[in-house]
């Protein structure tokens, strides 16, 4: 934990009130679009996909305080650039829930369809979700790296600097590893509840996500059915033409309805596949990121608890030494006595040592307590923020889900009303 981080924690943690998370001072409108295949560097054999990122904001510093604030800033970035942004944010804001990026999708790389429209469109939507989440965060949205990422025309040079600055935090890794099997003794009830609920929510969202996958697949076969049905009707219409013009006309009208249905269903399915499922997946990942933060918080808590254990032991030992023979150290003392060591002198020395240790431990414990509490506070604040972003996102994605369904049904209703009227 850096000093800066600590200061942030202590200062910010106090003035936050629960349930009313801080809003970022500026608004952003970020659109990720137009994925394009680019041929890679001369060195690397395969190409990459470049995404167009268009930003609009009321933060005038993004326009270098000049230029039209209404204009749109357009840059082109690739997935690995976003990954870099993500990692830097993760590194610099350890107490924040860093919005997740879409999976690397190694399989698609192997299968070679990472340039397919389906893949890039889905990723496009997911990257947009990522950037929007960052832009909604009060701290992340004001970070320098975020601004650079969104506006810089000279990203290549920035990238190298940023990559170098990104040193993996080894301590954290080992800490995390060592504490992997330890659990917090005194867990805040609130967190227990949050964890349980987020697990449940995650399961539900995953289930819905899976169901939509199935729906998409079924919709595909349905629209295939309708195409086949259409060709059957077409055949029938051709057969009837010349024999029964009235029926032929009816079949033609009906077939138009079926065709519209097939197209409409395809469009709806595309939306579900490219956007809604991506939203659900991103929500799952977001919940995951939040859990990661709670884990990190737990580690701080464990640090503190370990330290406090150690301190209690040291104080106990000191007290034993002061009060003469400590029960547990009796044999050790006896041995030392036999060895001819000056008991009194070594005892005093030990007490002194322990006292020094206790003082430093008390100081450290205080510090650790501060860090853990601060982290906890920050964590709760982050979770509140997460909650509000999540709520807004769900609202938005449900709205668009409803919109697309309405659009689909309106479209086919129009087509079928025509069919019904003409028959």
């Amino acid at each position, binding site marked *: 934990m850096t000093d800066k981080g600590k200061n942030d924690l202590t200062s910010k943690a106090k003035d936050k009130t629960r349930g009313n998370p801080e809003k970022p001072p500026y608004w952003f409108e970020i659109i990720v679009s137009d994925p394009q295949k680019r041929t890679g560097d001369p060195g690397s054999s395969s190409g990459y996909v470049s995404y167009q990122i268009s930003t609009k904001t009321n933060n005038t510093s993004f326009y270098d305080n000049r230029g039209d604030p209404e204009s749109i800033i357009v840059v082109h970035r690739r997935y690995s650039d976003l990954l870099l942004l993500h990692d830097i944010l993760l590194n610099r804001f350890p107490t924040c829930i860093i919005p997740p990026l879409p999976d690397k999708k190694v399989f698609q790389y192997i299968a070679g369809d990472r340039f397919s429209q389906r893949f890039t469109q889905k990723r496009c939507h997911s990257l947009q979700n990522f950037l929007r989440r960052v832009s909604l965060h009060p701290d992340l949205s004001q970070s320098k790296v975020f601004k650079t990422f969104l506006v810089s025309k000279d990203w290549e040079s920035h990238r190298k600097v940023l990559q170098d600055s990104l040193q993996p935090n080894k301590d954290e890794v080992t800490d995390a590893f060592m504490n992997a099997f330890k659990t917090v003794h005194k867990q805040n009830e609130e967190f227990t509840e949050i964890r349980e609920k987020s697990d449940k*929510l995650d399961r539900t969202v995953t289930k819905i996500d899976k169901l*939509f996958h199935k729906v998409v697949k079924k919709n595909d076969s349905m629209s295939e059915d*309708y195409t086949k049905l259409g060709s059957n009707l077409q055949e*029938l219409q051709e057969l009837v033409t010349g024999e029964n013009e009235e*029926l032929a006309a009816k079949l033609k009208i009906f077939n138009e309805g079926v065709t519209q249905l097939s197209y409409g269903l395809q469009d709806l399915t595309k939306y579900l596949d490219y956007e809604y499922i991506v939203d659900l997946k991103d929500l799952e990942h977001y919940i995951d990121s939040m859990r990661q933060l709670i884990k990190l918080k737990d580690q701080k808590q464990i640090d503190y608890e370990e330290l406090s254990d150690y301190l209690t032991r040291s104080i106990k030992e000191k007290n034993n030494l002061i009060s003469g023979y400590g029960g547990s150290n009796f044999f050790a003392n006896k041995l030392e006595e036999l060895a001819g060591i000056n008991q009194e002198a070594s005892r005093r020395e030990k007490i002194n040592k322990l006292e020094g240790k206790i003082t430093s431990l008390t100081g450290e414990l205080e510090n650790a307590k501060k860090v853990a509490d601060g982290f906890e506070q920050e964590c709760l604040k982050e979770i509140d923020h997460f909650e509000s972003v999540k709520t807004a996102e769900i*609202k938005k994605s449900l709205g668009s889900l409803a919109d697309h369904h309405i659009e689909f049904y309106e479209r086919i209703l129009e087509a079928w009303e025509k069919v019904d009227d003409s028959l």
Partner: protein
Amino acid sequence: MDYNIFEAVHEQQSSTSDMDLSEEDNNPFVGTHHLYASGIGTTIGEARPENENSPPSSSSLPSSPAHSSSAGSSRASTSSSTSSHAVVEADAETEPFVSLSMSTTATISKFTPHDMNGTQQIQIIDAGDFKDPWGKHAIGYVILYENNKIIRRYSEFHSLRQSLTRLLPTIIIPPIPSKHSLLKYIWSPINAANDSKIISTRKKMLNSFLSNCLNIQEISNDIVFQKFLNPEFNWKDVLSSSPIIILPLNNLLAPPLSPTKPSPLHSILPIPSNSSLRNYNSIWQQHITVKSHNEISNLPTEILQNESQFTHIENLFQNYKRIITHLLKNIRSNKSHFHSLSTYFAELGAYYNAFSLENDITMPNSLRESENNSNNPMMEIISHIEKTGHSFDVIYISSEILIEKYTSILEDPINELLQFLNESFKVLNFKKLKFLQFKILERLIIEKETKLSSLTEIENQLQKINESLTRSTILTDENYKDTKAADLTFVKKDVRSLSKSSSNSSSSGHQNEIHIGASKLNYETSTPTMNLNKLEIKQLTEQERSKQIKQLNQDLSKLKDCLSICISDMLEINNSSYNSLMHTYNHINLTIGKILKLFAASFKAWIKECLKNWKLAKLQIDEAL
């Protein structure tokens, strides 16, 4: 008359209560028996206006309140506790079925064909368990016709149909749903849900069958059909009485329009084998291209002209069959896809419900109950998610209804069309067989004529020879006669038996089996037989020759009579079956049009229902923003 319908109805009504207890498994109307019981119980006078007053548009009425109430109840049960997903699904699965069965009964009146005046002449108003006169339980279908209620069983419909096909071979008899295969019974033993589904389908299709029959004059005028619709007649007695028991074994051996009144000559007509149908086209082509000199082969121009119409309609029907078979296959696969989609919707509905309850992860449980959800965005989102879940619930229910309509509007009627087409091919085949019968007769006549002509020729030659011989010297005459006699006796023994049996069978023809064999043989291996005949002829004695000639002349006159009967049959068949084919053709086209119309209407209703719901959901989501 040994069976009173109303007694039975009464009996059934009074016994419904204990039947429910004792035979719950077999009673298909578990849960809905009150509806049926009261329906049967009402007198005719009360029942009729009830049926007439229900307009087709009302079909959506009984179903829609049912949805909202079932949806509402499932909603209520879920919002009370999180752990009741199972309850929701169970609700969603059972509730719609009740409303479905109600809505399908309502659509029957909508779909069944109407006659010219637009009023329904015939209707199956009920189907259910009844006791037949022998005390056996069976599923009876209550037909309402001309103010009479007639109860008939499926097997009786089946035998009626079978009798009709024999009575009216030139008419396309409307199809009825096919029998269950025994295998199906083994796979899915009778259970209430399955049975009631089969029964309701049968009820609908049998209704359609009766209406279709009434629209066909030949059938509606038929005495057997009229007896079927007359409660005075016991069907078993009808089956074992006059017109049916005197039907010929094969309709080719009877006049096509009145098979119960065969002329003596009909019974000696040859019967072409069904396998020869395969060669029909080439035989026909041969017949019209190869100009035989025999005037016997000349068919009336009417038949020749009609043939192209028949070929046209047959090709048309073949194409219909091909396309409709594919169509049906696709509809079935679409239906099953739709069905699994709708189950996903049901699951989604349930999970969105869960989602709405689990969404807020920071709010303590204690807070949730107490807090007023007016201003908290997190409480609002709960209702949005729930609303979305509700949309999926509603889509599931209305999709299930639509899927049910897939069966009643698309699958069953299209299947019926296919059966109609197959029946048409049977009638076409009958017409073809008649022609093949004609060809056999023609062949026989030609054979006999050639035989006769060669016999008479030899007779003439012999006469000439005899004349010239009597005029020439006696010496040479004696020599010649000796050699001739020796010649004849020498060969006679070898050929005698063969020629006798062959001539017997081909000329007499009173025994059908032998006849078929002989005619077939003659038909296919005509040339060697002819040669043999010529050979035979030369080796016959004078008496035998004259006997043969006499016989042949007799046969020929008989055969020619047969031929003329056959030709008049052909004319009758052509006229009658062409009319029936055209009737069927029109019926098919009308039905296709009707199917399209009905499907479009119910599909539109489905879209509207879904759209309405999503709009409602959207409205609530927007209001909060």
